[in-house]
């Protein structure tokens, strides 16, 4: 009898907790929902009553999206395109070359490798401000200021975390497997690409997630390195450029539309690869 009662108590407690959590989640989503609602309202209505739903007078359909997409006389799709190019290229470069370098570092382990590994870990603690001015000059003089070449800068700057994670995982792979491959006549290249690389898959996914999240959202590096006069912008750079100075004069509804559209790709990405993202984050956090 007593046991049944405590079970019942437990069940009601859990239901209460479920409801409380659901309410908190709803509050958690409110900022994004508010933005979404306001993208359909007239600019004056956005300013005067941010938290009311659009009515027949203030509803403007997709007008805000139309103005928002060309705000600052720069087509927003171009910023999305450049962001996508830079993110994909950077992630690909980092995944391929950093995993190769990490394998080399883990297996050869010479003094040079040790120094390089140390420098990589060292680079993780250096704040960007330390290199921002010299880096922008160096990148400029080497013509690394286009969306097609800036991934090289990301490869250099992102090498630290990637190599750290890859080395950690490579060391846990038994060396006997690679020896077996070499006895079967594989050279280092084939051993790496046919044997080691497929085994790295979980770490590859984790690193990919971390690097994609970083590069996609990065603001300071592209704003300093990219050739803005040539029309190269990433999403954060575009948002910063169009809102500063014009904040207040700019149509608030259009600005909300711009913000909302820029969130959509990352939300889709999140919903599609949620499992990997959460795993990747947990893996990336356990760095020493």
């Amino acid at each position: 009898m007593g046991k049944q009662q405590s079970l019942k108590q437990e069940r009601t407690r859990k239901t209460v907790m479920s409801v409380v959590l659901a309410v908190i989640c709803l509050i958690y989503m409110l900022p994004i929902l508010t933005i979404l609602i306001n993208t359909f309202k007239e600019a004056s209505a956005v300013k005067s009553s941010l938290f009311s739903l659009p009515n027949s007078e203030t509803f403007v359909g997709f007008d805000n999206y139309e103005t928002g997409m060309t705000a600052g006389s720069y087509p927003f799709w171009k910023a999305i395109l450049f962001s996508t190019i830079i993110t994909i290229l950077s992630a690909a470069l980092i995944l391929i070359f950093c995993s190769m370098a990490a394998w080399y570092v883990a297996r050869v382990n010479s003094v040079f490798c040790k120094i390089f590994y140390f420098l990589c870990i060292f680079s993780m603690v250096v704040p960007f401000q330390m290199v921002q001015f010299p880096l922008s000059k160096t990148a400029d003089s080497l013509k690394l200021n286009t969306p097609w070449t800036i991934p090289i800068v990301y490869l250099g700057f992102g090498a630290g975390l990637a190599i750290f994670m890859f080395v950690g995982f490579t060391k846990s792979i038994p060396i006997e497997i690679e020896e077996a491959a070499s006895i079967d006549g594989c050279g280092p290249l084939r051993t790496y690409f046919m044997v080691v690389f497929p085994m790295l898959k979980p770490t590859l996914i984790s690193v990919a997630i971390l690097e994609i999240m970083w590069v996609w959202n990065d603001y300071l590096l592209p704003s300093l390195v990219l050739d803005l006069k040539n029309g190269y912008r990433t999403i954060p750079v575009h948002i910063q450029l169009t809102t500063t100075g014009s904040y207040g004069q700019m149509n608030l509804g259009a600005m909300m539309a711009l913000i909302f559209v820029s969130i959509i790709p990352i939300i889709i990405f999140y919903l599609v690869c949620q499992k990997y993202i959460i795993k990747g984050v947990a893996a990336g956090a356990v760095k020493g």
Partner: protein
Amino acid sequence: MKEKQKANSPVEAVEETVAEAVLEAETNAEDEAAVLESESAAVDGEQEQAAPVKPKKVKVRAGHSSMTRRSMRKWSWLFIGPVFVSFIIGFLWPFLQGIYLSFCSGRITTIAKAKLTGLQSYEKAFADESFFHAFWFTALFAIVSVVLINILAFAAAYALTQGVKGSNLFRTIFFMPNLIGGIVLGYLWSMIFDGLLDLYTTTNLVDDATYGFWGLIILLLWQQIGYMMIIYIAGLQSVPEDMLEAAKIDGATKRQTLFRVIIPNVMPSITICTFLTLTNSFKLYDQNLALTNGKPGRLTEMLALNISNGFANSATRGMAQAKAVIFFVLVAVLGIAQLVTTRKREVQQ
């Protein structure tokens, strides 16, 4: 001949000279399999040194044990070269230049034209009041955000590991803001805050430093609770089941179980999260720039923004670089403290 060809790539050249010198010393430190390999490689090396004109013999040996380090070294230009070169371009060279620049002052337009003036920039940096204000603002911000984020994230993780219905959905939602970048977050929240303030006051977010401070705190909480929650969930799930059962059998209350069993067991996660939130708060830039941009005046300027703003003017670049070095030392000390504490814990376990 072969050696000369190899020396073409700079990475390879360094690698080779270093490698030859240390092959012997290395052998001790390796595990058994590696010892065998490097020994055969060492034999290779000696033979080559003694008779470098006999490439045939080396070729045969390399063919026999293709997985030796020697054969890997042949490909080092491909394996480590690309990362090494871009690491120098993207990090090492700018870092060294940065240290050099911090000892320069005056108008700095290019690095080549900068004049060395010793510690002048550092003196200026330490005399800059905005820098000190930024430091205290950042320190206070870091303390408040670290405490709040960790408590709330732990609470969320604890609630979500109780087997409540819909836990997965809640987790998904709590984590989502973390994916939105700092700039977008900043503008998103600045519009929300201004809308909220309009309801009750006539001021804006950028009119009052107190609003700015708490605005930044709320923004960061919203962004990072989900992230830290994920780490805490992983920690909570690794608490041994039998320990919890033993506590239950011994008649421990929920509270006792939490403080005596669960929290001691998730200490590693707590350390990680504390340091992550601490360094994140110290390095915060994008959110600060987008939400308040330091306004009113420079009252809500944090360290990173203060330094970055200094680079905009060629006359203050030397000082900004000196500040950056100080900032770097500060962050590095935090990083080393983290390393030491996590290492210690590993030893204990």
